[in-house]
C-alpha cells in the first residue's frame, strides 16, 4: 500500500511537529484557559497531558524526537506550587541534566525547553508556545535525533 499522495504534498512545506508535555494541574489548565480566552497558539503544538511534570521520563523526550518531533517542551506548575508538593523540583534537575546531555552530543540548543505555567497563566501559555514554535522554525527540521525509519 503506497503512502498516500496527500502526505507527499504536505512535505513540500515543512511544518514543525512540537510535543508539549503539560502537567494536569497547572499547565494543562493554563492551556485550557488560553483556549477559552481565545488566545492563539500554533496548531503545530500537540499537547500530551501528564499527571505531573515529573512523570516525564527522559525517555519520553527522546521518544518524541525518535518518532519525528522537531521540538519538545515540558510545562509544569511553578516550583513550590506542585500539586504533589515536590514533583517539579525533581523534574527541574532531571531536565537540566538531560538538556545538557543533548547539547553535549551535538543536538541544537533550544529544541527542548521547560516552562512553568500556572492554571491562571493562559497568556503565558500562549506566549511560551508562540516563542517556542518560532524558535523551532528558526532551527529547522530535526535531523539529529530522529529515527530515520519514521521519516521515510
Amino acid at each position: 500500500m503506497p503512502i498516500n499522495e496527500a502526505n507527499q504534498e504536505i512535505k513540500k512545506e515543512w511544518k514543525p511537529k512540537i510535543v508539549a508535555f503539560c502537567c494536569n494541574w497547572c499547565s494543562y489548565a493554563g492551556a485550557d484557559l488560553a483556549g477559552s480566552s481565545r488566545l492563539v497558539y500554533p496548531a503545530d503544538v500537540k499537547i500530551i497531558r501528564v499527571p505531573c511534570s515529573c512523570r516525564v521520563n527522559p525517555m519520553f523526550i527522546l521518544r518524541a524526537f525518535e518518532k519525528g518531533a522537531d521540538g519538545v517542551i515540558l510545562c509544569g506548575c511553578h516550583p513550590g506550587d506542585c500539586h504533589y508538593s515536590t514533583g517539579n523540583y525533581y523534574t527541574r534537575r532531571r531536565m537540566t541534566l538531560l538538556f545538557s546531555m543533548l547539547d553535549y552530543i551535538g543536538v541544537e540548543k533550544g529544541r527542548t525547553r521547560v516552562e512553568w505555567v500556572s492554571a491562571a497563566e493562559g497568556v503565558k501559555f500562549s506566549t511560551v508556545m508562540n516563542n517556542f514554535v518560532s524558535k523551532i522554525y528558526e532551527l529547522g527540521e530535526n535531523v539529529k535525533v530522529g529515527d530515520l525509519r519514521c521519516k521515510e
Partner: protein
Amino acid sequence: MKKIAFSQIDNLLAAIAATQKLYMPVETAGQYNYGEWTPGTKYNPDVLHTVKSAKSVFFPQSEDLIRFQRDGMNLSIDPVAPEDEDFVVFGVHACDVKGFDVLDRVFLHDPVDAYYTSRRKHGTVFSVMCKAPEETCFCGAFGIDSTAPGGDVESWIAGDDLVMRANTEKGEKLLESLGSMLADCDDNAADSAKAENKEVLAKLPLAELNTVGFGKEVDLLTLFNRPEWKELASGCLGCGTCTYVCPTCQCYDVRDYNTGKEIQRFRVWDSCMYSDFTMMAHGTNRPDHTQRFRQRFMHKLKYYPDRYEGVFGCIGCGRCLQKCPISMNIVKVMKKLGGEA
C-alpha cells in the same frame, strides 16, 4: 597464480570497487569492522581481526524483512526482496572463511534462508592469509589451515607482492576483470610466506589445543551434566559480546517496529546469553545463568557437530578471547572439559 605489488593494493581495491560493491575491513574511530569501500579507504594488513566478523557482510546485524500496512481490519504484507547485487568481500582470513561454511550449513540447509542465500550467491570472497597470527589464534584445533585461506580468490602477502589464485568460477571472473593490473607468477611464489606463517602458529601458546573430549564418541548428556559448568559460568556477566563478535553465531530475533506509517519487521542478531532469549509468557526453559552459558558452548562444541556431520561450530579466530569483558572464553571451556592438550 597472479600477483600485484603490495604497494598497489589500494589501487587494486579501487579497481574492484569501480565495478561492484566492495566490503573490506574499514576503520571507524579506531576500530576495524567490515564496511563498504569508499574512496580513500586503505587496507591495513596489520589488523588481524575486525571486531565484528566477516559474517556481518552476509548476515548483517539487522535487516528488514517485511513492511506491513494496517488499515482497520485490513492488512497488507510487502516483503523486502533479498539483495541481489554482486559484491566482493576482501581481506577475509582463513578462520572467517571457514565461518561462512559453518553458517552455510544452517542457512543453506533446507528450508534455505532467502536473504543469506542471495548474498552468498552474489558475493565473491577474496581471502588473504593472515599476516601475523596472535596468541589468541587456535584455528588449527579445528583443522583449519591458515595458509590456505580459501574462498573464491585466495591470496598471500609474499615479500613485496600480493600473490593470488582463483579457486572458483566466480573468483576467476573477478581476476579476469582486473585484467592487466595483475601479472602472472610462479605457483610457489607464496611458499616462503606460508612456511613463515606455519612456523609462527606452531610457536603460539594454543598450538596444541585440540577437540579431544568433544568428538562423536563423547556422550552429549555426560558433557551436559558436567559439574564444572557452574564454576566456568561463575564470572560470566551474561552480556552478548562473545556472540556478537563470533563469526559462527547465527541466532537471531525477529522484531516489529512501528514507524507511525507502517510496521517494519526486521531481524537482528540475538544472543543465547540473554535472559529473555527463550522467555515465553509462562517462563523460560533456561532460567539460570549457568544454563545459558552452557548452551552457548555446548552448541559450538557438541550440538552443532552432532547435527552437522561432526563439523565444529567454532573456528578458532580468538575474537572472544580478545573481547570478553571478563576473559572467559571457549578455550578455557575446552581445556576444562576436554582432554588435556
